[in-house]
């Protein structure tokens, strides 16, 4: 099967107008990583089971490996690279660091995007809510304890800042 004709897609990524060419079969994750050099989003399973590739698509966290590049015409996308504001880390990033909520760090970008999405809605999310909401993100190093605590701490920080 010859490679299909490439599709031209116009989108906004981390607040910046971006356009790219991709094959119809290319996932958003491939486009981000291979075409646009945004390698912060990671591939852990490529079938939507690990959450390492989580990005925000029009305000919702999605597994970017399950979205086609061609689908995001006109969409707003935020990736882990867009969480920090110029040289300042976001509270969720700060709390992951202070709380040692990462070990190898491969799942961290996905967790940060998903955690920020949750806390933007509900900075006072309970442990139960956090565990439910982030259960689509797998971490094999930490046992999750410190991640849950970091998300809770970040929520508090975000609530006091507002």
């Amino acid at each position, binding site marked *: *099967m*010859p*490679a299909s004709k490439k599709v031209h897609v116009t989108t906004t990524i981390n607040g910046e107008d971006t356009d790219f060419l991709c*094959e119809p*079969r290319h996932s958003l994750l491939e486009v981000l*990583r291979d075409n646009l*050099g*945004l*390698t*912060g*989003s*990671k*591939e*852990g*399973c*490529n*079938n939507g*089971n*690990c959450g*390492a590739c989580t990005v925000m698509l029009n305000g919702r966290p999605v597994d970017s490996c399950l979205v086609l590049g061609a689908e995001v015409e006109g969409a707003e996308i935020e*990736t*882990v*690279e867009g*969480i*920090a504001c110029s040289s300042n*880390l976001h509270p969720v*990033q700060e709390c*992951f*660091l*202070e709380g*040692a909520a*990462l*070990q*190898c*760090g*491969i*799942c*961290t*970008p996905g967790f*940060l995007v998903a955690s920020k999405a949750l806390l933007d809605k509900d900075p006072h999310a309970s*442990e139960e809510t*956090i*565990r*439910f909401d*982030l*259960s*689509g*993100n*797998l*971490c*094999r*190093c*930490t*046992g*999750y*304890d*410190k*991640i*849950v*605590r970091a998300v809770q701490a970040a929520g508090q920080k975000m609530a006091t800042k507002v």
Partner: protein
Amino acid sequence: MTTTQYRVIGSRPVRHDGADKVTGKAIYTADTKLPGMLAGFVLRSPHAHAKIISIDTSEAEATPGVHAILTNADFPNVENKIADLGEGSVNLSYLSANCMAQQKVLYRGHAVAAVAATDVHIAEEAARKIKVEYEVLDSVTWVLDAMEENAPLLHEDIVTDSMGEKADKPSNIPVHLHFEKGDAAAAFEEADGIVEREFKTATVHQGYIEPHAVVADYNEDGRLRIWTATQGSFTCRQQTAEILQIPLGNVLVTPCEIGGGFGGKITVYLEPTAALLSKKAGRPVRIAMTRADVFEASGPTPGSFMRVKIGAKNDGTLIAGEAWLAYDAGAYPGGMIGPGCMCVFSCYDIDHAIVDGYDVLLNKPKTSAYRAPGATQVAFATEQLVDEIAEKLGMCALEIREKNAVKEGSRRVDGPVYPPIGLVECLDALKQSEHWNTPLDGPHQGRGIAAGFWFGCGLKSSAACTVNSDGTINLMEGSTDIGGSRTSIAMQLAEVLGLEAEDINPQVGDTDTAGYTDVTGGSRVTFATGMAAYEAGRDLQQQMRTLAADLWDCSADDITIGEDGVFSGNGKAVGFKALAVELFAAGEHLVGRATVAPECPTNGFGAQIADVEVDPETGKVTVLRYTTIQDAGKAIHPSYVEGQLQGGTVQGIGWALNEEYFYRDDNTMANASFLDYRMPTMLDVPMIDTIIVETGNPEHPYGVRGVGETPIVPPPAALANAIYNATDTRMTELPMSPPKLWKAMQSEQASE
């Protein structure tokens, strides 16, 4: 207990690589991109066991975009040479054949060919056009079946080795081990109580989130550069060079940031293939495994069959033990049976014991280490029997463990005696814990405890520190950092020099830059590479003392170096930084270096408490509360020690309750995805409380013991004991998944 007050050790600084890892800037192997880089795809066997009759690549070669195709014919013929990989040794012909199948494929997922093309999709499409003709053979995936005389034979040339004695005909049992201590048969005669059971555990995977990946660039001058996800850049270099039969010095391995390993990223799988594709194509090649490849073609840890028996006197003294263990080796010899045998009674002072162990070949991927390799399986058996005999004798589960816990001077079943160790202290901490002293409060609930052990090794590490003109330090070391070890190593250097952790810039060097360093494994990095950093700091101090003597116009012997790193002599007292600045201004420059090779195991003991609730309708186990206790010797960065305890524990919980390789009737894996191989999610576990015990390791300047592995050992046993206490049902098979537990509860009820 250690009482020394430290400034840096025991504090919790933000890790040096932290900002990179929370902003997406950290570069992992799959993030590496070289100019002109091609993508590789590995074609794998769909069969569990088959002869390769022929491979026809012609159609694939004609595919536009394809630059190179590789089959077993392209791999050098390596002899049956045993290569020492630092942490264990390996037969190179098996290692090579595991990277690319030779005459036979031995498991589904076994590599048979590879393609490099301009895009991974093109490479995959082309690979699918390669015609491999197979003659499918009978296969076997259950360890006891594989040991049968008429079992399908994986290797015609492998005979059982019983410590140097070779059997006279081939079998699937490459190794038989046997240990004896005292006279077990006589001791069982004298026992007042005896318990014996058979146990089974499933094959499980380390489940690191980052799939194996490599970038190889075979230069025109014969130099091979590799960027890879490895636990040990030097062992990766050696394995790759030996398989390709090229000089070690021609290979440069750069360890990228690594997304988890747990023992599964020590053996090479992709490196030689990527290198040969790159050589053929004349361009760099990147290969990344799919998640299915990771399950089917990397190295899970052994499933097992175990028969274990223990005997005790009425006062609870354990006097006799017997174990018969058979572990999956996978498709090639060299499984985890040795440590399995050595760990089956490692927590208890049993005078008379006999252990037999068998390494068993079967049509699964070659097994590899997974956190305390081989120890979790046997703990599942022994720690349940200890509970059972305690109940029989009317003792409490903790009391019998306290009574029989190994301590300094206790003799292991394989012979050596323990130096000072901390199991008794861990059990004491358990006894004092709030968790142990808080009763359960609901129906269908139960509490279980278990102890665990892992040796922890030393091996070789190097460190070099270059002093900057402002007195800060660039630390070069060679331990790939999986969980924050850069920082725990830097903290030890900071401590000895009287600096802050932030004054040190730790860097994990490549194989041309860092001094020789063995793998990140065996719970050794904070212990051994930390020791190297400490010694490098001492080396710096000695150099500075000599140079300061000139500066201060006194003899070096007149200058003392305090615990705070302050140099004092001839009426002066100057800290490290100030002296470094002074020396730099005087035209001196400073590089400290050290290599170490500590050889005493660090002996990590732990104990855990699990509370569960079992749904009688479904057999689902909910973990209500969990406490992990471990002797860390001395916790350098307590947050990351806690992280090791929590992470290992949750992996153990997954092993206990859900994880397993399912096989179809044709012995191919049925659940090679994260959806079907179900690791714990955040929702499946509670907070994991930790208690760090610090008994101080006399073999380390700050008393460090390895902590990484032991935490995975007790969970299946602790949970099985908790399930028993909740349901009166003894689970002898892992995983204790809802269908299995439900069935066991039904038959327990039927037999009542």
